[in-house]
């Protein structure tokens, strides 16, 4: 008889436990990181009555969580990839929107600037048109500055988000290490049974961590979880954490890089490629900085071409034109790891060959080598790095203040700051060089039928450029310049002298005289302004194949494509992530209908067990009654 009571009570206890576990599932249906739990029931030890053995009821042997490590790992990897793309998308979208407005504005203001040159050409002596040109130049400079300051503010934003991510990562890893300790103790106390709640929490923290940075994990036999980042730098080992830290970039202290407290300041940024942190680093190196460089490349080319056109002509006062724009000198920064104080200075020697790349110059074993910062590819470089024989490559030349120490490195950024530093340095509208430098004319007493071109500047630095010169024909086929050697006349051929060029065409006669002299005072001359206006159709960049306005269009297309590509990749990864999430949920999630069915099942089982107890009771009562009746 006692069996009935024992079995029933064990069943009542087991079913109560099962109802508790089910209720707990229902209660935590929406708790992040909660893994559905199941009660494990085992038969009680059988009791033998000599003939057969009868079960002794049911016992709760454990409560297990439904969990798939493979699905969880898959989700974590997917979350890291999604985190990276989402961070990247955040910046590429901002640039995309920025380039819809600011760069569209830049394009418009560039066009207005060139048009203003035409207006000066239409009325070269008009101060109003000259003032308007300076105004347009100012708006071009502002557009470049705005675009670059918006990009720079994105870089600042990247820095602050890197710091925030690192702080958050460190607080998560320290929580993981604490849980590690508790879980190890818990397993020991529960006889190998892990405390489910703590493991749930730890898995949830790992999942959160994987959104911030790509990680790998290993499980120790005592139940502790180790977390690694990058190329295997440990963040959590058992109960110990290594803090992730930020260090200034060796070349640019304003850019934060990633390191760990165990690495002595060495950065591991390049190995952090996924998670939000990876996305931030990628956004900086692949989206923001290249955009700044490309913008700077256009700004440098604009400044150079406009200024050199100015130098070719004369202003209203008869002086050579002053520069309209200035760009800051290109950047060359020494690594903070350099062992001496050697400084490098860079200048742009050929805008056509200039690229939008940054370079790393290193000095090793007595030789310089230049590599492209973006992909590390080698760039051929010539020269010795001295002022007399500078290092030159891809339109830039580099001079070092002294021979660097072995292992010294320098970051060379020819265009990174050009857009930000583009300024209008001309305030006096009369100093716009609308006129050509020289003017050629034919003597009215010439008897031949020939004409001379107006005279173009070839070399504005020639000191004799403005000196008067006379081209005298001794006969129809021979001329001399300033009484010099006789030269043979070619119809329409170039005649170059003192840094200018003219063409005489037609049939000159002996005794004909042409003069070329300074154009000072020719305030109505618009030849140089005309050349300034048509410069927009002249290829400058990429070895003369791309116009400045064309380069802006190409920039818009390039950045748009990049944003489009990132958007597509992000959307694809989001879909992958949803899949991973669903597959994790299908194992670990709580289905309320399922739990309702379980509740019913346990309730009925409980009722049945209680009924069994009642029957046992009544059997016992019957027995008592019959014993009493016999004796009485």
């Amino acid at each position, binding site marked *: 008889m006692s069996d009935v009571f024992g079995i029933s009570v064990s069943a009542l206890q087991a079913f109560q436990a099962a109802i508790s576990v089910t209720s707990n599932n229902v209660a935590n249906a929406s708790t992040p990181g909660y893994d559905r739990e199941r009660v494990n029931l085992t038969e009680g030890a059988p009791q033998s009555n000599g003939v057969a053995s009868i079960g002794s009821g049911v016992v709760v042997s454990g409560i297990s969580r439904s969990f798939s490590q493979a699905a969880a790992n898959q989700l974590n990897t997917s979350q890291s990839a999604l985190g990276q793309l989402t961070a990247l998308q955040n910046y590429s979208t901002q640039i995309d929107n920025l380039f819809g407005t600011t760069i569209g504005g830049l394009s418009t203001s560039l066009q207005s600037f*060139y048009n203003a040159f035409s207006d000066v050409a*239409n009325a070269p002596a008009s101060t109003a048109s000259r003032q308007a040109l300076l105004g347009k130049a100012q708006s071009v400079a502002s557009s470049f500055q705005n675009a670059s300051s918006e990009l720079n503010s994105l870089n600042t934003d990247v820095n602050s988000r890197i710091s925030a991510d690192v702080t958050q990562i460190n607080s998560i890893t320290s929580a993981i290490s604490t849980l590690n300790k508790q879980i190890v103790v818990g397993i020991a106390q529960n006889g190998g049974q892990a405390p489910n709640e703590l493991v749930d929490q730890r898995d949830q923290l790992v999942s959160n961590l994987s959104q911030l940075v790509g990680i790998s994990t290993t499980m120790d036999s005592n139940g502790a979880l180790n977390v690694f980042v990058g190329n295997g730098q440990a963040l959590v080992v058992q109960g110990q954490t290594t803090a992730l830290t930020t260090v200034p970039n060796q070349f640019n202290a304003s850019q934060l890089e990633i390191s760990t407290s165990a690495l002595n300041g060495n950065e591991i940024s390049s190995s952090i490629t996924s998670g939000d942190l990876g996305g931030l680093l990628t956004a900086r190196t692949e989206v923001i900085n290249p955009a700044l460089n490309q913008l700077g490349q256009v700004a440098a080319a604009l400044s150079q071409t406009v200024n050199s056109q100015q130098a070719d002509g004369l202003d209203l006062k008869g002086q050579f034109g002053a520069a309209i724009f200035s760009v800051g000198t290109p950047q060359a920064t020494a690594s903070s790891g350099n062992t001496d104080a050697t400084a490098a200075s860079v200048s742009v020697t050929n805008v056509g060959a200039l690229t939008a790349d940054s370079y790393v110059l290193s000095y090793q074993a007595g030789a310089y080598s230049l590599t492209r910062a973006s992909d590390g590819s080698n760039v051929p470089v010539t020269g010795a790095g001295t002022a007399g024989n500078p290092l030159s490559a891809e339109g830039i030349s580099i001079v070092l203040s002294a021979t660097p120490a072995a292992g010294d490195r320098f970051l060379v950024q020819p265009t990174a700051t050009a857009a930000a530093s583009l300024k209008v340095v001309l305030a006096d509208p009369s100093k716009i060089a609308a006129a050509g430098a020289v003017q050629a004319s034919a003597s009215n007493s010439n008897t031949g039928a020939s004409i001379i071109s107006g005279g173009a500047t070839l070399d504005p630095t020639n000191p004799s450029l403005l000196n008067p010169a006379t081209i005298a024909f001794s006969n129809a086929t021979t001329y001399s310049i300033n009484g010099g050697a006789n030269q043979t006349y070619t119809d329409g051929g170039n005649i170059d002298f003192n840094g200018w060029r003219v063409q005489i065409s037609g049939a000159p006669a002996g005794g004909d005289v042409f003069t070329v002299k300074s154009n000072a005072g020719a305030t109505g001359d618009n030849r140089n302004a005309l050349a300034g206006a048509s410069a927009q159709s002249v290829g400058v960049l990429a070895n003369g194949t791309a116009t400045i306005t064309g380069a802006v269009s190409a920039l818009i297309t390039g950045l*748009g494509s990049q944003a489009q590509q990132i958007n597509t990749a992000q959307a694809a990864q989001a879909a992958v992530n949803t899949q991973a999430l669903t597959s994790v949920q299908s194992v670990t999630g709580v289905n309320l209908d399922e739990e309702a069915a379980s509740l019913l099942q346990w309730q009925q089982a409980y009722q049945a067990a209680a009924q069994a107890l009642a029957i046992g009771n009544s059997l016992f009562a019957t027995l008592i009654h019959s014993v009493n009746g016999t004796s009485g």
Partner: protein
Amino acid sequence: MRVTQNSNQALFLTTIQTLESDLSQTQNQITSNKSFTTASQNPTAAGAVNNYNQALAQSQQYDTNANSAQTRLSTEDTTLSQVQTQLQSLRDLALEANNSTLSSQDRAAIATQATQIQNSLLALANTQDGNGEYLFGGFVTQSPPYTLSAAGAAYHGDQGQRQVQIAAGQTITDSDNGNAVFEQIKTGNGTFAASAASSNTGTGVLGVASLSNGAQYAAGNGIYAINFTAPGTYDVRDSTNALISTGSYTDGGTISFAGAQVTLSGQPATGDSFAVAPSGNQSLFTTVQNLVAALQPGANTSASTAQLNNSIASALNNIDRALEQMSNVRADIGGRLNSITTQQSVSGSQQIQLQANISTLQSLDYAGAITTLTQQNTTLSAALQAYSLTQGLSLFKYL
């Protein structure tokens, strides 16, 4: 597959967000009438639209340039037509002064009128354009190109010819300098000019001078003197004093030599000479100045009358050359104005084409967009409906 309420919920939210984002983008396209609002939506088209916009702005600037050139050329044309009128009046005055019956007072009155014409011509040559720049100064446009002194009008401009760009690769000269218009006018008949020596004592007056054989004239050295060696007899010598021909003079007859022929009337005296030289360039103002000087009252002898007649004849020749010059320059201006008009219509159609290109790339296909909007709307409301239906399903309701 085992599905949980949680994952259902999350999936639903993601889907709804995607649908709403798509819907918002379509809505944005419709309200802005653009098929793309950021470069990432269509990078190639965004770059191309930027290029087309630049080309459009450039083309519109060419129109501005062409209008500016048109204004300046029209001003120049009007000015030169007034110059022609003035020259015509001067020519009429010269013919009137050539009448031997005129008293010296009458002639003085004509001289006064000629001076006035000289001043008008000077004012015309100093015409300014709308920007206050002197039209005929070449590149020297801030000060009057012509000033008058006792020696005549002097040109202070240069030979600059200002160009403006009216199309890609096409520039047009928007004015002519005074040197080309007023200074480089050939004298005489354009090939050579005949003149009487100022020391002549007879009454020989030069008439028409023309080429009878251009090739023959060009072959010679061009400079000849007709010397009267005796009354009724002349010889013609070239610049090396070589004798070219001799002849006997008939009043009003033609003297021909070396491809040139001149008519001479009156009675040249022995020792009188007439020179023939290749036409040089002479300023319009020199021509006018010479005429005004010749009309000033002088001795009333037959020789001085002949001298006056010769001066007037020479002036008439030079005025004719000047009139021809004005016609040529005006014809040239007409040609340039024509090119501008042609270019304006070309650029008009170019601009329409560019705008069409921009519109093709950028403008929204409304029918398509609205269809898409409707579809997206339907999908979204279906999704919401599905959610509200499935959310009601729970076994707990039936317990």
